[in-house]
């Protein structure tokens, strides 16, 4: 009986470090600033905090806040004729603070370091028992990347997998209204003055900022809903993809739907439809990043295989892509989508439109 009350971990395996994320709806919302303010408060309360990596962009109010904090020198990595600075993961691990500040979770490291992605560095720190406070912008969250691209026309290159957000102990949203941010920019607090007007007319257009803010607010609200189960019973989602260009969009849509429904998401494809191994691997990796499972179904009849899989797992929601628009001729027989709908009277079927480019 006594044995059960043993401390949680053996001395060799320290407790996993806690992760706190400051999530910004838009760049310039003040995430880094909020993180540094929190760091000072922690230092006042006698916590051992170091700066692993903080990007100040020379914003005066941010630079000011760096003063008084212990900063681990960055590692300098030669790359294509220049030298880039990165977080010195090994040095932070050696220093072993209680809490490390690591800015910009979605950052991609220079080739040659231990990991490709900064969020992987963060995982190493946590595994070593170091608590991490980090920042990320909503546009870099994998499951909403396509939404952000669609509404703003911005191409998002770096993303953080949703499981990293789901695995965080705390997410704090840093909100700012579009007009307040634009005002802050005009005061030169975010970009150098000569760049401001161009930025305001492009990336920082009010509708872009409003859309990203909106996506961020809902992302956090949905993840809270998931954690305290407002829904009577969670409902699961099955996404059927056929390895064409719209598959990525479908997988993200399925993951978002599952998040809102509080259930899990399973991505399936039918072997006969997916000859390309590399493509298959890419979709499998994307599903994994979104916390979804992935399966290749046997058989050659797509509709029958999808219907069977959905029935076997009692799936409440099936997500399929809209098929290529049909000719007069094919209107005389049911499409794959028609057959899936007919085969699953007990499930909701979502026929997702092709993206209008």
């Amino acid at each position, binding site marked *: 009986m006594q044995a059960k009350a043993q401390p949680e971990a053996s001395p060799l395996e320290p407790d996993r470090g806690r992760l*706190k994320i400051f999530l910004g709806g838009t760049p310039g919302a003040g995430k880094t600033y909020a993180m540094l303010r929190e760091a000072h408060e922690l230092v006042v*309360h006698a916590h051992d905090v170091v700066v692993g990596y903080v990007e100040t962009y020379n914003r005066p109010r941010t630079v000011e806040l760096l003063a008084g904090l212990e900063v681990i020198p960055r590692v300098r990595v030669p790359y294509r004729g220049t030298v880039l600075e990165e977080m010195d993961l090994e040095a932070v691990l050696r220093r072993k603070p209680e809490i490390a500040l690591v800015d910009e979770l979605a950052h991609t490291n220079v080739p040659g370091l231990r990991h490709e992605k900064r969020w992987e560095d963060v995982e190493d720190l946590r595994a070593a028992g170091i608590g991490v406070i980090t920042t990320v912008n909503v546009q870099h969250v994998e499951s909403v990347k396509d*939404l952000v691209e*669609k*509404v703003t026309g911005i191409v998002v290159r770096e993303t953080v997998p949703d499981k990293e957000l789901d695995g965080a102990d*705390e*997410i*704090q*949203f*840093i*909100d*700012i*209204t*579009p*007009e*307040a941010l634009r005002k802050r920019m005009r*005061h030169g607090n975010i970009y150098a003055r000569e760049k401001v007007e161009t930025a305001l*007319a492009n990336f920082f257009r*009010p*509708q872009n900022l*409003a*859309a990203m803010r*909106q*996506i961020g*607010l*809902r992302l*956090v*609200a949905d993840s*809270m*809903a998931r*954690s*305290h189960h*407002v*829904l009577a019973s969670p409902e699961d989602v099955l996404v059927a993809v056929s390895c064409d260009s719209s598959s990525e969009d479908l997988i993200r849509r399925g993951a978002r739907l599952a998040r*809102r429904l509080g259930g899990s998401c399973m991505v399936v494809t039918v072997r006969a439809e997916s000859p390309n191994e590399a493509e298959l691997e890419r979709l499998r990796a994307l599903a994994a990043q979104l916390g979804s499972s992935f399966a290749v179904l046997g058989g050659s009849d797509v509709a029958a295989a999808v219907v069977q899989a959905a029935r076997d797992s009692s799936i409440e929601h099936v997500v399929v892509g*809209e098929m290529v*628009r*049909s000719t007069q001729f094919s*209107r*005389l027989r*049911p*499409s794959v*989508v*028609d*057959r899936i*709908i*007919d085969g*699953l*009277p*007990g*499930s*909701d*079927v*979502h*026929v*997702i*439109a*092709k*993206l*209008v480019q």
Partner: protein
Amino acid sequence: MRILRQISAETRRRVLFRVYLGYARGVGATTAMLDEARRRRSRGTDVVAAAYRVHGEPGQALRDLEVVGAGLSHPDHRSLDVEAVLARNPEVVCIDDLADVDMAGRPRIESVARLLAAGTTVLATLHLLSVKSMATAYATMRGGAPLGALIDDTALEAIDELELIDITPADLLQRLREQRVLSPAELAVALQRELRLNVLDAMRESAFRLIAEHADRQLVGYMRESGVTVPWEVVGRIVLGIPVQRGLENRIRRTASYAQIQDAKFSVVSVRTRRQSDEEKEWMGAYAALTHQLGGDFVHLHGRSAARALVDYVHETLATEVILGHRRRSRWIPGDTTSEVIRRLSGVDVHILRTESPGA
């Protein structure tokens, strides 16, 4: 040209009403407001604090700020004296807790219009549970009497910028213990009521959704201004198409709750393809009443083909998703409404609801 017009409109519009929304006491809305006031003052703006309640040392919380009617002294709380503010005529005024009453006993928010009209920008704070619909929603969950005066939900529409002051519930509890925002006795009671973790979680989520809804109106405005015509999933608009049939109440209810979890608006559309019997008209009347009760719009369309009329409506209204019930026939036949809608709609999702199990 458009950019120039936009910028000139922004510079012209100096007066504005900004509110910091907190989901619980102690999240830091007052601090955020006063920080912003100090920032503006440091840039040379004429700022005063008019109504507030601060915890701890008032001289510290209000440092560098002028308090209307109190000169440079800093009492720990002050009611709104709107006549004094109007006489002082500052560029920016801070009003803590919009739902609290002024010296004449009226909610402070009622004075905001006068201040704005006088050309004064208003920075203010608001507690989530001071909003009428939220106070009602949480009345039982948090227990105890309402916080005080409530403000109507429609009053939120007058706010130009509604900003969320977020903090995680764990950090909030920590802060409340450290900073003594509440007396130990108050804290002990509150911990059994509105400061229970699950209540805080729920209130925090509601605050996010309230802000998102407010921001949505703004976003739709921006979209119109810039001539966006493609449907946007961020602003979900769901259309349920129903046949002339009895017993569709649950289909309407399911659509309403699905729209709710998606933060989407919804409408129910019925297409009249032929003359309807009195009984059929009665069903439709009842569906319309139910739809309105659930917060949706009910639309009657006329047309020879139900699918075509529905598709036209969906495209016109920039809907993002169409919901249909399962077809009544057990087997597919050419020209089936569901397949026709899927075939004809481009850029819009089609969602087929499951057949309800008997007795559900």
